[in-house]
């Protein structure tokens, strides 16, 4: 079994990435993947797509047909059009209800898999030290804070470790995002290059601050 330190870190990373990409995106991605499996809904979804393309084609044809010169043809197209529209609406509503069930199940599972596991781990290993600090390395109150709430004094508790992981993940992801943003930004005149650095520094400072704040929150 891999070290608990790594497990907690990976868990926090996953939570962060889910939050970054957005629940809706992930759900729709999962929905697409789910429909690739041979399940009844995938057939319905394919049918729906098929109907939609048929409908568009029919509509194009209907628009190309003059209702005055070829009334019979136009009216027949129109009947098909109405029928198809009704069908599409019907399948859409059933599909929508399936999708909302799917979404709620996925949401529940995701919550259990991430936050549930996190809570479970934090509860289960609350008395276990993650690692020991070198003796006399930090003052007593800092040791007490790091071992909060129930780990032995002088060690780092799983809660502190989780917070540290989260803080570092935030820091790195912010840094990455701003670095990518800088790289992708159009080349600015050299004059503005100097002050542009400032925000990233500022961000780092802010992250630092948030880290200390989050640790304070533990109190």
């Amino acid at each position: 079994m891999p070290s608990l330190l790594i497990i907690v870190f990976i868990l926090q990373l996953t939570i962060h990435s889910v939050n970054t990409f957005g629940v809706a995106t992930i759900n729709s991605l999962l929905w697409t993947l789910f429909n690739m499996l041979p399940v009844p809904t995938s057939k319905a979804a394919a049918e729906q797509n098929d109907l939609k393309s048929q409908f568009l084609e029919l509509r194009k044809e209907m628009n190309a047909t003059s209702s005055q010169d070829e009334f019979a043809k136009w009216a027949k197209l129109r009947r098909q059009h109405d029928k198809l529209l009704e069908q599409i609406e019907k399948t859409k509503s059933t599909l929508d209800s399936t999708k909302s069930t799917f979404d709620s199940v996925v949401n529940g599972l995701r919550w259990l898999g991430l936050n549930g596991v996190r809570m479970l781990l934090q509860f289960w290993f609350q008395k276990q030290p993650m690692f020991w600090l070198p003796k006399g390395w930090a003052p007593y109150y800092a040791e007490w804070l790091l071992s909060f709430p129930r780990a032995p004094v002088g060690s780092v508790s799983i809660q502190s470790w989780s917070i540290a992981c989260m803080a570092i993940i935030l820091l790195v992801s912010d840094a990455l995002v701003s670095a990518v943003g800088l790289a992708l930004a159009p080349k600015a005149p050299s004059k503005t290059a100097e002050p542009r650095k400032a925000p990233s520094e500022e961000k780092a400072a802010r992250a630092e601050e948030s880290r200390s704040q989050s640790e304070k929150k533990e109190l």
Partner: protein
Amino acid sequence: MSAAVVNADDELEPTLQSILDQKSLRWIFVGGKGGVGKTTTSCSLAIQLARVRRSVLLISTDPAHNLSDAFSQKFGKEERLVEGYTNLSAMEIDPNGSIQDLIGQADDGEGPAAAGGMMQDLAYAIPGIDEAMSFAEVLKQVKSLSYETIIFDTAPTGHTLRFLQFPTVLEKALAKISALSSQFGPMLNGILGANGGLPNGQSLPEMMEKLESLRETISEVNGQFKDEKMTTFVCVCIPEFLSLYETERMIQELANYNIDTHCIVVNQLLFPKAGSDCDQCNARRKMQKKYLGQIAELYDDFNVVKMPLLVEEVRGKDRLESFSEMLIKPYVPPVGGL
């Protein structure tokens, strides 16, 4: 049941004979766009039906009443025999006006009259309910009159469909109200006192009774309208784009309401004589021919009756009778025409 008779030929017979033969028909609606000859057609159909049925009633629901005009005889809210017939009656109802009568009636009388004020409130509170209620009232009246066949000369298209929709809408609304009243009735009665008197000397149970009987009538009639053995809709149109468009729309909507329709009367056809030098007539004939072709293609499962445009106005008993013949025996256009 001859409505189901399908000729061996591809085309169904171009007459309304199937309606005459279908003895089980109770309600016949005649509808179409304004000015295409609905009234003429319904009068003609009524004349033909009167020859083969025990009794026929012709009702105009068009606010612009034309029955009086067509028969050159005054008709009113009460049914009246058409002069020269013993089994053909006609009446004109105004879907907007008769709610006033209904309320007025209630106010004059005793007993159920108490519901009058409440009815009035109700009639103006729910949009469309006034028309629906007057319609229901007429249906109730008509039902008690025991005519064998009732022909409705309906108002132009939009109106017709709304009219036919009413029973469904009203039935739903009334079912809700009845359910509510049976649930809360006891409670309300507790508040209102032993005899359920409402503020203006009205009585709740009586009003509910009235609504309930209305609902029953409507649901019964509604069931009959959806029965193709008892009800059919005759579409009247002229071979022009807008009229055809409306007809198609109407036929689709009727199908949605499950109301049977299998007859189309194409009116006002021009048949210029051979060598006619009337430019307008010839041009029009060409256009009509185009649309007739479209009709034949689109409605191959309908009885399509072709009626010519006459040189005289179709008014009065004799002319209507001769016109009505053409509903049964197809008009033969002059030889050699376009």
